[in-house]
């Protein structure tokens, strides 16, 4: 069984939901990003999303756009990303690592080479925000040969027909986008509507679903944990990592993790 499935099973038995945390390799600099990855992993992240910098991140809001830009200005290349993953994998053998990357770098480097490097480094799969189910087959087939999972996204605008297609093509879980829009912190999220959407999804698809985009506080995490299998937090964590304050980052992750527990307290 793969790490993603194992993680959801383990959390299910413990009556917990998954805390998925996103960070960008090379932001604010390579060393700090490694420290930040370690910090979030040591303090409660159940699944890690590893950002691969790209020149044109159309699905991202201002905070993560800056992270892409700075990482590229820092000279971050694919080999830095894979090196970072390798280093983290040594210390965290069981946590799923998902690479969050736009499609062009994968395509240009070559799907075969990219998947090979990804597998070697210890990645479990990719999330590719600009690759919808209709276009995912060539990459998915290559990934399958390397035992990598392709996680597809669903959105509030996905029709029932589209949800079926997404469910069929995605591996292990679905990343449900909370609102129409880009990544970034939001004060209010439409929980009622979101809950209905996720319930609707459950009738169609039995694969675990995590909810992301706009999620930044423990209260958000707690609300979403009532109906989803996990919660993704990105921009607010990226912002903290840029301040290079690991203590603050650790506290934030602990607090968010508490939001995924039924009792609200870590046992």
């Amino acid at each position, binding site marked *: 069984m793969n790490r993603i499935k194992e993680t959801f099973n383990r959390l299910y038995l413990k009556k917990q939901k998954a805390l998925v945390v996103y960070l960008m390799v090379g932001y604010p600099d390579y060393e700090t990003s490694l420290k930040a990855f370690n910090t979030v992993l040591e303090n409660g992240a159940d699944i890690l999303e590893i950002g691969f910098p*790209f*020149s*044109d*991140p*159309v*699905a991202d*809001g201002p905070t993560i*756009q800056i992270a892409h*830009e700075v990482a*590229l200005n820092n000279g971050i*290349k*694919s080999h830095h990303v894979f090196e970072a993953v390798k280093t983290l994998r040594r210390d965290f053998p069981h946590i799923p690592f998902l690479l969050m990357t736009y*499609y*062009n*770098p*994968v*395509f*240009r*480097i070559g799907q075969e080479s990219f998947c090979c490097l990804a597998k070697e480094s210890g990645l479990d799969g990719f999330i590719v*925000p*600009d*690759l*919808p189910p*209709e*276009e995912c087959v060539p990459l998915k087939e290559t990934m399958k040969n390397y035992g990598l999972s392709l996680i*597809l*996204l*669903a*959105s*509030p*605008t*996905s*029709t029932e027909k*589209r949800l079926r297609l*997404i469910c069929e093509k995605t591996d292990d879980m679905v990343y449900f*986008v909370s609102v*129409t*829009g*880009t990544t970034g912190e939001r004060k209010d999220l439409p929980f009622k509507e979101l809950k209905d959407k996720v319930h609707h999804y459950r009738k169609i698809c039995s694969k675990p679903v995590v909810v992301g985009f706009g999620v930044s506080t423990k209260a958000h995490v707690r609300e979403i944990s009532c109906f989803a299998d996990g919660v993704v937090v990105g921009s607010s964590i990226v912002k903290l990592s840029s301040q290079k304050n690991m203590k603050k980052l650790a506290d934030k992750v602990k607090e968010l993790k508490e939001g995924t527990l039924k009792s609200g307290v870590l046992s």
Partner: protein
Amino acid sequence: MFPDRLGYFGDFGGRFVPETLMYALEELEKKYKEIGQNPNFQKQLRELLRTYAGRPTPLYFALNLTKYAGGAKIYLKREDLLHTGAHKINNTLGQVLLARQMGKRRIIAETGAGQHGVATATACALLGLKCVVYMGEEDANRQRLNLFRMELLGAEVRIVKSGSRTLKDAINEALRDWVTNVKTTHYVIGSVVGPHPFPMIVRDFQKVIGEETKDQILKVEGRLPDVLIACVGGGSNAIGLFYPFIEEKNVRLIGVEAAGLGLDTGKHAASLTGGYVGILHGMKSYFLQDDEGQIIPTHSVSAGLDYPGVGPEHAWLKETGRAEYISATDEEALEGFKLLAKTEGIIPALESAHAVIKAVEVARELGKGGIVVVNLSGRGDKDMSHVISLLET
């Protein structure tokens, strides 16, 4: 028939966008087929193009330029005479009319040189829709006049300060807006780029250029031209001219990309000539990018060609060998700009000047007895202050 069911022109095109936009694209494709092909819609659009935009545009025999070149006859398809000064209005009237019938009340657009932004703002003013235009900061600086024009027409211009601050980043920002406001908003893409069905829709609204050209040249010359030539940034004016001739295998199709300071300097915008296949802005096509798929900064004297990608139908025409793609440098474009002004009393847009200068070469190669048609896609008024500063330095 291209594009195919999935929006591909051979191996190029497709639909590479966040899931949130997928339904909107499906919906747009469906509505376009219903409304766009409807005779009433067609009639309404034809009337607007005739009485408001100024179609048909003349096909002008450029005698002086022909004499100067000393070879084949050169004809100019005068899209520069259209309302707002370029071919862009063909597409914006079509798309804004379509959006209104789809019940969308808000329009967004990106712009490089500002021509598409002005044409979108114009169509929105005419048809009563709210309009937001994204423009890169660098482009806003080189095209101040168009910025004021858009505001005068009631559009809100949002200056984009991310990335390279040009057209590419304006498209990124427009896509971010669309993904956020997709329920109420239609995105009027300005060229034959983006996810399916945009390359098809924009082509369909621009193909009137080639259809008229065909009729007009047959009337005056009794035969089809030997060569069609047009500048290519995203490629909408070129596709508009080429499309009705694709099956006419004896007509050579030549696209002219922007070679900027020279192809070997790396400072250019010739994605078909110097780029690699990749995925950006929702489509699989040619892009200027590094070995790791990062999009690299482009350069062209003309903001309208300053884009690191190209429409998928052009990628397909190149791959199949049906069209040829060459390039003209900034310096050559400026020469074409001055040449057309002096010989014909027509000041072309810097974009179109790329095609003009190459048409002279092609006319010479072709020799007497040949016929070349150049798409004069826009007029140069917008470029005056930019050219003054270039000629002074």
